[in-house]
């Protein structure tokens, strides 16, 4: 390892100010700090610092995504071969999905990290690790058949207009991964919905009893006889966006996020609570079959669980006060189910619910902080009276 360190130290002057590659300083820093934690020491304030940094935080989220990612790869293969009426062994299915998924991931990281490095260089910052997670989230929330060029454009849009125009990771208003998804959804609606996009390599002639539609699509048009069982939805052997079908795998990720304290349990819990309560309210109303659907199914369907665990808990775009987190999460749950059931144009409400609440999060925080301020002013007035 000493050889690598020596090599890096030797190359470093070329990238410093005045060096021949000074325009690549941010890229060089990103690579160097990937291998080695910097040797910087404290100058002011506390002399000791916690071992945690942004890289560590992001790698935890990355690890939490892996179960859902691996299952998603397998499920691409499973759905593909199912639609062809074939039954190959598990590894064939996984490998098929892996090869489908790999180019999407490469395009997402390539475009996203490239832009991040350019922006970091322009701003003279170090490259922020935020895209480390976004870059994996984006491939996991798109349908398997999404063309690569669309992913490239969506990622570029998300990084530039979802994040960098606001000042980069930490300053963004809306979740970048969901911005990419929303961009795809509104820019290329024909490639993002319908029955043909959810299964990779769908044959022209489908076997009998096979539609290729997602459960949400079925629910929207009232095909409740074609709905998978609760068990199938929980395990995730259904068509859907790549990473979001298996609630089981998402829950494993949720446990990792909560045990490490990286994600906030208040938001996660209240999203599920909000969705479930809205489902129950619809049960009471019971106008149509969709409203009568078991409230628990709402939590298993579509991107609800994935959104609750990985998207709503984004610390930058969510609320930052304790009370605000409950309100924010609860409203996401309610709005997601509301959109699903009421709006025929959008089979999935989770994406829109989170994006909407992202925009409202600062407002919620504002009122909670205002109440803190008025409490302080009130204390002062009482003190003056005495």
């Amino acid at each position, binding site marked *: 390892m000493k050889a690598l360190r020596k090599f890096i130290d030797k190359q470093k002057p070329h990238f410093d100010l005045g060096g021949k590659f000074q325009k690549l300083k941010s890229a060089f820093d990103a690579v160097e700090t990937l291998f080695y934690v910097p*040797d910087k020491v404290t100058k002011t304030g506390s*002399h*000791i610092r916690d071992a945690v940094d942004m890289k560590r935080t992001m790698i935890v989220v990355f690890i939490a995504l892996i179960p859902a990612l691996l299952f998603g790869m397998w499920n691409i293969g499973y759905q593909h071969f199912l639609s062809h009426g074939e039954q190959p062994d598990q590894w064939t299915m996984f490998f098929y999905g892996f090869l489908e998924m790999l180019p999407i991931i490469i395009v997402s990281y390539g475009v996203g990290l490239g832009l991040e490095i350019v922006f970091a260089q322009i701003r003279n910052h170090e490259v922020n690790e*935020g895209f480390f997670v976004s870059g994996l989230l984006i491939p996991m929330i798109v349908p398997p058949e999404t063309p690569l060029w669309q992913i490239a454009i969506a990622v570029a849009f998300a990084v530039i207009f979802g994040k960098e125009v606001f000042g980069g990771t*930490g300053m963004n208003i809306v979740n970048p991964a969901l911005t990419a998804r929303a961009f795809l959804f509104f820019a290329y609606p024909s490639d993002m919905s319908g029955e043909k996009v959810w299964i990779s390599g769908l044959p022209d002639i489908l076997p009998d009893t096979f539609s290729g539609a997602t459960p949400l699509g079925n629910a929207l048009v009232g095909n409740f006889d074609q709905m998978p069982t609760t068990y199938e939805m929980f395990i995730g052997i259904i068509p859907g966006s790549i990473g979001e079908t298996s609630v089981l795998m998402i829950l494993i990720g949720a446990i990792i996020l909560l045990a490490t304290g990286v994600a906030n349990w208040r938001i996660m819990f209240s999203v599920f609570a909000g969705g479930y309560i809205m489902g129950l309210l619809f049960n009471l109303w019971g106008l149509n079959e969709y409203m009568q659907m078991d409230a628990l199914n709402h939590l298993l369907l579509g991107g609800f669980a994935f959104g609750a665990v990985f998207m709503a808990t984004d610390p930058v775009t969510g609320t930052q006060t304790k009370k605000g987190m409950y309100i924010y999460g609860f409203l996401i749950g309610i709005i997601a189910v509301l959109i699903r059931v009421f709006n025929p144009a959008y089979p999935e409400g989770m994406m829109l619910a989170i994006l909407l609440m992202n925009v409202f999060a600062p407002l919620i925080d504002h009122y909670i902080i205002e109440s*803190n301020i008025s409490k302080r002013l009130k204390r002062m007035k009482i003190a003056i009276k005495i």
Partner: protein
Amino acid sequence: MSTTFVIKNGLDIKLLGEAEKTIVDLNAEKFAIKPPNFLGCFPKVLVKEGDIVVAGTPLFYDKYRDNIVFTASVSGKVEAIKRGAKRRLLEIIIDSDGKNEAIDFGASNINDLKKEDIVEKMLKSGVWPVLRQRPYSIIANPNDAPKAIFVAAYDTSPLAPDFDLIVHGQGDEFQVGLDVLTKLTTGTVHLNVDSTKTTSKVFLNSQHVQINKFSGPHPSGNVSVHINRVDPINKGDIIWYLYPQDVLTIGRLFLKGRFDSTRIIALAGSEVKNPRYYKTFVGASIKNMVSGNTTDGDNRFISGTVLTGEKIEKDGFIGFYDSMVTVIPEGKYHEFFGWLLPGFNKFSFSHTFLSWLRPNKKYRLDTNIHGGMRAYVMTGKFEKVFPFDIYPMQLIKAVLVEDIDLMENLGIYEIDHEDFALCEVIDTSKTEIQSIIRKGLDLMRLEMS
């Protein structure tokens, strides 16, 4: 007082190298008084290099509050007057003659004195600067009448000195010091003790003061926490605060009539071979304390705690308000894939390293920052180590944008930069939070004066 204030949010950082409870004489040769220790003070020097001084001889005064003078803590010769950039006065170093002579200000019975006499005596002798005020942590204004005075009789910082040991056998001086304080305020003098760890009779049998009990992790020993729970600061309020050794200094001034700045200093930290307590005077050089008593290798010498102390050289001087010296290793090294390892031995408040499975482990922590500076991404973490009804992140951001009204509304008067030390330690984004808050407080002070 039987109620105990229980502090829930906080963090005790467990470090190796706690000071053994024995006290030895330091016999330091050099002493220094460092004007940067006194926030907001513009020093005007009164002595020249080569002047002979005794304990109580004025060395400099504050240009804007010229009745506040700073005096020599020992007798000897002024060896050097060190200045830094822009001729900023850094240190006035005194070469001690070991005789410890002092000016006699006259012993007096505290009951016979009026407030004005007390204030004048404290100002003249150079004892006054031990009194500081909140907000801003500047030296108290002699013309103010604070609504209360707070004495913190214990410290919860990592490796903190044991004040019970320090005040042992000095009950008379301590009580006289407290009596002086009761004459300086129209309100109450609060003596704040740890509900279980404080056992010294000197503290628990104190008269004429209100004893408040606290329990919980650091920063439960911070003055701001005590004030916040007992008698919160509102806009316009002034509270004075000091520590037990300062109370003793005041007590000795009135009992003996001289500026006796005797200090007991804890030497602690993982790199100290014999961590223990040393008896000396204010501003002692740490040279005789650490030479031959620390491990080889690159070490950092800190006057004060690892959270809030000041970095000094290995022959540097202890700060005016500090009761301890900490020595920890410097962290100038590159760690290969440090962010990826399981991390059984890494200290972290987060649970992202497996070390959280060993909560009682004591650490040998170095000064490495462990990462690069980023924008704030993680939220809701600071609150866990910040036991105030204040939104820390929002306050930090208000300071960054220099929004005076917002800072005031969010409660900047109630806190000090030391209260943000733990936030700074656990910050994922590696920002210099204490400096930011300090800047905010200084800005408020200038704006309000």
